[in-house]
C-alpha cells in the first residue's frame, strides 16, 4: 500500500466508487418506477453521440464529446416516447427499436469514416479504459496534500466527483416529491407535483451520469451500477432512505472489490496480467445482488412465502 498503489490504483478505484454512487442515486428511483432499463438504452446511444460530435467538430476533446453524447441521450429519450405514443408500442419494444437503431447507426458511421487517427472505437465505448486513468505525478500518500501533484490528477476524477456531488444535492432537494410521485402518482398529482416533468428530470439526471461516466468506465459498468446495487438494496429493506443507503454501500463495495479482484486477483492465481477492472466491478455488483437474492431479509414479495 505504498507509492505504487497511490500512483496506479487509487484514482481508478476512486473513479469506480464515484461512478457506482452516482449511478445508485437515480438508479434507486428508476428501479422502483420500473424504468431500470432506461440506463441500458441511454448507455447504448452514447456511442452515436460521440461519433457524430467527432465528425462535426473533428476533435475528441472532452466538451464536444460530452455535448454530443448528451444530445444523443436526450434524442433517444424523446424518440422512445414518440415511438411509444405514435405507434402505440409497448415501452420495452419501443426502447429496443430506438437504442438498437441508434447504436447501429453509430457503428456504421464510425466504420465508414476516417477515425483511424483518434482513439475512438466500439470496444472502448463498451468496456471503458479505467486502467489508464492513473496518477503519474503522485509519489506516495503525501501527494494528496501536494498541490502540484494534485494538479496532475486525471480530469475524469474531478468530473465524476462533481457529478456525484450534484446527484447527491438533487436527490436531497427533490427527495419528497420524488418519493411521493414514485409510490403514488395520483396522490402526487393531487398535491400539485408536476409528475411528468419530474419523471423526465429523473431520466435526464440518469443520462448526465451515464454520459459523464462512460468514457472512464464504459457503458457496461454504467448499466450494471444503475441496476444491480439498487436491486440488491431493494431486497434488504422496506424503507426508501435505507434502500438508497444500501445502494450506495453496495455500489462502492462492488467498485472496490471488483478493482482489487481485477488488479490483484490474477497475480494471486499466478497469472501475469490484470483483467478488465470495469468488467470485474460489474461482476462484483452481480455477486452482491446474488447474495441479496439468496439471503436478503426482504427478498420475498409481500404475502409470498420465502423461497
Amino acid at each position: 500500500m505504498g507509492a505504487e498503489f497511490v500512483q496506479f490504483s487509487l484514482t481508478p478505484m476512486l473513479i469506480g466508487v464515484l461512478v457506482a454512487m452516482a449511478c445508485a442515486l437515480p438508479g434507486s428511483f428508476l428501479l422502483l418506477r420500473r424504468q431500470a432499463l432506461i440506463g441500458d438504452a441511454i448507455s447504448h446511444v452514447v456511442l452515436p453521440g460521440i461519433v457524430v460530435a467527432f465528425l462535426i467538430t473533428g476533435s475528441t476533446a472532452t466538451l464536444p464529446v460530452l455535448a454530443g453524447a448528451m444530445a444523443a441521450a436526450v434524442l433517444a429519450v424523446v424518440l422512445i416516447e414518440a415511438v411509444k405514443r405514435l405507434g402505440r408500442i409497448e415501452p420495452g419494444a419501443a426502447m429496443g427499436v430506438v437504442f438498437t437503431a441508434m447504436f447501429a447507426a453509430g457503428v456504421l458511421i464510425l466504420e465508414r469514416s476516417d477515425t483511424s487517427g483518434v482513439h475512438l472505437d466500439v470496444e472502448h465505448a463498451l468496456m471503458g479504459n479505467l486502467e489508464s486513468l492513473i496518477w503519474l505525478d503522485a509519489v506516495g500518500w503525501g501527494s494528496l496534500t501536494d498541490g502540484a501533484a494534485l494538479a496532475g490528477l486525471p480530469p475524469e476524477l474531478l468530473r465524476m466527483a462533481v457529478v456525484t456531488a450534484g446527484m447527491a444535492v438533487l436527490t436531497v432537494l427533490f427527495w419528497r416529491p420524488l418519493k411521493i410521485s414514485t409510490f403514488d402518482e395520483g396522490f402526487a398529482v393531487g398535491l400539485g407535483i408536476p409528475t411528468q416533468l419530474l419523471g423526465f428530470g429523473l431520466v435526464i439526471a440518469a443520462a448526465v451520469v451515464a454520459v459523464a461516466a462512460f468514457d472512464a468506465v464504459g457503458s457496461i459498468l454504467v448499466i450494471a451500477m444503475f441496476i444491480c446495487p439498487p436491486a440488491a438494496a431493494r431486497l434488504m429493506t422496506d424503507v426508501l432512505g435505507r434502500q438508497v443507503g444500501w445502494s450506495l454501500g453496495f455500489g462502492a463495495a462492488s467498485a472496490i472489490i471488483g478493482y482489487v479482484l481485477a488488479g490483484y486477483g490474477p497475480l494471486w492465481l499466478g497469472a501475469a496480467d490484470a483483467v478488465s477492472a470495469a468488467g470485474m466491478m460489474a461482476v462484483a455488483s452481480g455477486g452482491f445482488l446474488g447474495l441479496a437474492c439468496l439471503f436478503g431479509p426482504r427478498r420475498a414479495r409481500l404475502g409470498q412465502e420465502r423461497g
Partner: protein
Amino acid sequence: MSFLAALSLQAGYNAALVAVGAAMLGFAAGAVGTFLTLRKRALVADALAHATLPGVALAFLAMVALGGDGRSLIGLLAGSALSAGLGLWLIEAMARRTRLPEDAAIGAVLSVFFGAGVVLLTVIQTLSAGRQAGLEGFLLGSTAGMLWQDAVVIAAGGAVALCATYVLRRPLQLLAFDPQQAAALGYDLRRLDLALMALVMAVTVIGLKLVGLVLIVALLIIPAVTARLWSNRSGRMIWLAGGIGALSAYVGAALSASVADVPTGPIMVLIAAAVFAVSLLVAPQRGILAGAIRRARLRRDWA
C-alpha cells in the same frame, strides 16, 4: 455493380450461402419476434444475447485447453447457448422468487454476464492463442473471412429455426394473445413460454456470428413492431414480420459483402429500422399520416 451481383447471389459461393442463411435467419427472427413482442418480453432477448458472451469466451478457453485452436463455430455457439440458458434461468428465478420486477432482473443479468464476458476476453487477450481468436466479431457480427463450414452452420441453423417456428406457430399465437384460452385448451403455459424462449435463444445463437450480440435483439423486435403497424391479425403479422426480417437480413448481407467497411449487423438493423420509420409514417390505420387525416376529417365533419 458488385452490390447487384451480391444481391443476385453472384458474388461468390460463400457470400451467396451467407446471404441465403441470413434471409432464413431474418425470417425466423421476425416471426419469433412477433410472439415475443406480443407477449411483451422483447427485452428478455436483449439479456439473452448479452449473456452469450461469457459462454463464447469459456468455450474458446475450453477448446484451447483441450488442444484445439478454439475457433470452431459450433463449439463457440454451444458455449453461448449454455450461458444464455443460465442467464434466462436466472431472470425467471429472480422475477418469480424475489420481489424484483422482471426489468430489473433483465438488466442485472445483461450487465453482469456481459461484464464477466469482458473479463474473460481480457484473459484470452493475454494468452498467446488470443491473438487470432477474433472473438470481437461476435460483438457486432462479421462475415469477413467467414469459413465455408461457418456459412453452412448459419444456413442450416436458420433453416432449423424457421421450421421450428412454423411448427409451433399455432400454440405460440394462442400464448401471445390469450394465455387463458391456451391453458383451457390444455396447453402447459410454462412449457410454451419455455419453447418460445428456446426459439429466441436459437435465433440469438445462430445470429451471433452474423449480427453480433449487441444488435441481434433488433432483428427480433423491429420487424415485429413494424408488422404490428400494418396488421391487426396475428397470422398476417407473423408472415409480414418474417418477410421484413428476411428482406433486411438479405439486403444487409449483400451490402456488407459488396461495399467496403459496412459491418453486417448494423446495416441489417438500419435497413429494418428504415422500414419501421416509413411504416410509422404511412401505415394505413396506425400510421402518423393516417391519424392526421382521420383527425382532419373529424374536424371538417364537425365544423
